[in-house]
């Protein structure tokens, strides 16, 4: 007996009688006793329903804050004006709540028709057949760079289409560099050693309460860049850990060198600034000259710092065998594998991706648009900060070798592992080498299942 089979979305099948109350409770209890099929399933365990024609109603789920909700509603209105037979129901919350809610609704067979995904979870959802292969849907992806598009492919199927791109880059505050009497580094040639010495020099020159840089060790993206510069990668296309223990240890060592040289604050301050997000970090509070952030965070950083911040390439781009920086899909548009209205869902995703009107409303809110044609078209509408991001992204385009593969199933735990081990290293509870060994072991365990 499968509840999932019958319990589609609540807005469908209004005909069922309400006394199902007792039946449902009973079904759950029976299922609990009987073993076998539990009644708790997932979107992926049933055959996709017959595609239905419109007029219809589709649900679009996304995460974000108030500004995104407002602009997305405007895009939905524009889409509905063009497609009067399709109603798009918004379903949004903050980041943490989003994933709890999504997992719950998928478990109950009530998957949203169009889902926003992120690299941390897309493998989980894709490999459990929750997401449709979008290459079979009528969505025009010709304007999206192939390398970027590949960021949403798993085993040749297109489970997500990137909404836009970000890059992990060094953000620098020229005013603090000037105060410290240190010159901005040449980001085309600087090495990881230069990074350490520059940060230490700024801290010395700027005096008490101002540091050279904010610790970068909490985010696995930095490790990925360093690994790629050495010809390795965080994950291989086969979904295995592709980084050597040595690289991980070197990665953690940079933080220790910075702490020893005064370039970054002591361990407990570092943890504090990390927890405070972009606004409360060193750059946001004018207490540091550098920090590694995603390019889409430049806006929040600039606003709270009140200074004009600059984007720099990460160190070591010319130091190793190849460059390590990459375009990261900011998020993905995905379509539920068991939506009743795949055409309508596809039409909506196509609109989000390719419509000039949508792009003009969205601007860079979901990353610098993946569709290069609309990206060009909105450049003039961007704020100065966003233009800076667009220029920077264009500058590094030729240097980028490839887009990393989608991280494997289970990689959602990676962020927590990284954060925990980096804290241990900073407080010198383990050596970088020990942390590296533990990292390899834990990540392999997490992604094995």
């Amino acid at each position, binding site marked *: 007996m499968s*509840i999932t089979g019958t*319990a589609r*979305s*609540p807005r469908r099948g*209004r005909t*069922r009688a*309400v006394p*199902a*109350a007792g*039946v*449902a*409770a009973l079904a*759950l209890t029976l299922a609990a006793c009987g073993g076998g099929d539990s*009644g*708790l399933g997932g979107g992926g365990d049933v055959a996709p329903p017959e595609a239905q024609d419109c007029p219809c109603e589709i*649900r679009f789920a996304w*995460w*974000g*804050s*108030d*500004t*995104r*909700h*407002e602009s997305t*509603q405007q895009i939905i209105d524009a889409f509905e004006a063009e497609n009067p037979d399709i109603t798009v*129901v*918004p*379903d*949004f*919350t*903050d*980041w*943490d*709540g989003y994933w*709890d*809610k999504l*997992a*719950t*609704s998928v*478990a*109950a*067979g*009530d998957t949203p028709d169009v889902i926003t995904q992120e690299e941390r979870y897309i493998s989980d959802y894709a490999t459990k057949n929750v997401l449709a292969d979008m290459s079979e849907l009528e969505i025009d992806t010709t304007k999206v760079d192939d390398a970027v598009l590949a960021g949403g492919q798993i085993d040749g199927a297109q489970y997500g289409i990137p909404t836009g791109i970000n890059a992990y880059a060094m953000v620098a505050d020229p005013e603090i560099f000037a105060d410290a009497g240190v010159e901005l580094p040449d980001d085309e040639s600087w090495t990881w050693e230069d990074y350490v010495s520059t940060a230490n020099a700024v801290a010395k020159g700027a005096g008490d309460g101002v540091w050279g840089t904010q610790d970068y060790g909490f985010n696995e993206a930095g490790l990925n860049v360093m690994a790629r510069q050495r010809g390795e990668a965080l994950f291989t296309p086969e979904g295995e850990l592709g980084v050597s223990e040595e690289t991980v240890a070197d990665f953690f060592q940079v933080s220790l060198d910075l702490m020893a040289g005064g370039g970054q604050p002591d361990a407990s301050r570092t943890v504090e600034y990390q927890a*405070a*997000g972009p*606004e*409360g970090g060193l750059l*946001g*509070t*004018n207490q540091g000259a550098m920090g590694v952030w995603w390019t*889409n*965070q430049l*806006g*929040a950083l600039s*606003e*709270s*710092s*009140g200074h004009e911040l600059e984007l720099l390439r990460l160190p070591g781009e010319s130091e190793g065998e190849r460059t390590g920086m990459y375009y990261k899909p900011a998020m993905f548009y995905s379509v539920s594998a068991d939506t009743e209205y795949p055409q309508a869902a596809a039409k909506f995703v196509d609109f989000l991706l390719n419509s000039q009107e949508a792009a003009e409303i969205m601007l860079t*809110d979901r990353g610098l648009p993946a569709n290069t044609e609309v990206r060009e078209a909105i450049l003039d509408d961007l704020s100065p900060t966003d233009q800076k991001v667009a220029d920077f992204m264009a500058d590094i385009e030729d240097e980028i070798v490839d887009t990393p593969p989608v991280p494997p199933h289970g990689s959602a735990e990676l962020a927590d592992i990284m954060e925990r081990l980096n804290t241990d290293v900073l407080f010198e509870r383990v050596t970088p080498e020990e942390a590296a060994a533990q990292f390899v072991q834990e990540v392999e365990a997490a992604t094995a299942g």
Partner: protein
Amino acid sequence: MTDASTTAQTVPAPAAAAPSSSAGRAAPGPARGTAVRPRGPRLRARVGAVLKHAGLIAFGFVMLYPLLWMVASSFKPNALIFREPGLIPTEIDLTNYTDGWNALLHPFSHYLVNSALVVLGSLLGNLVSCSMAAYAFARLEFRGRRLWFAIMLMSIMLPIHVVIVPQYVLFSQLEWINTFLPLIVPKLLATDAFFIFLMVQFFRGIPRELDEAATLDGANHLRIYLQIMLPLSVPALATTAIFTFIWTWNDFFSQLIFLTRPEMYTVPIALRTFVDATGESSWGSLFAMSIVSLVPVFIAFLFGQKYLVKGIATTGIK
């Protein structure tokens, strides 16, 4: 309350007792007055009271600090909240309030109304159904009482995170997702065992002699429940009401999961949407609207706490 007084006045007092009066309560001193020397102690008492107040006020500041800080932050421009985290803002900016009120798809009042609806339903449910169940556990003899009591307690020992998914399946079967029903109906069905247990403890504190006398007068259990237990348990009912109000008002997780459409969102969900861990956040609006949403709970508490002190002591019962 008058019902209670009349019923109770027929009850013989279990022990010799002076007529109760609130004056006697406030000053137990005169009862042992013979031993009191005239001036010294009164002065000492006054100094004592002043010291007590000073201590309470100092401590009150520690308790008040977070609210003062939040109010201060809500008047700071977004950019300064983190750069100048102190208590006194250097710039005062009211736009957080106007922006926050209108930032979401609906004006913030919409979410306040939704929250109020959920709270009212939960209040009604908890007050009626939990007190009924509590009466049974406190005063009735029936088979398996201990077992049922244990089962009741067990139901609050599982973290919500593992029952929410089966609950969602259940409510989606009933087509209750995206209505207030999953949030209110369980309360009507006394699923909040916390309050049952709370009221059991209070009911058991009410002298049995009262209901025995009422039984002799021919009252049945419904009358005892309505005319003795409830009126004598105003503090417990007030506690239940206050907590139901505050906890429902602040409850995030179940409201997040069961309400899917923006027009149904309640205050806690709306507040979260000001902050995005992955991008830009409207901290100023968050603080401003947090203050706004604190006002109803604080008023509820101010109003409700009056009833906390309306115990047996003040209802005229001997």
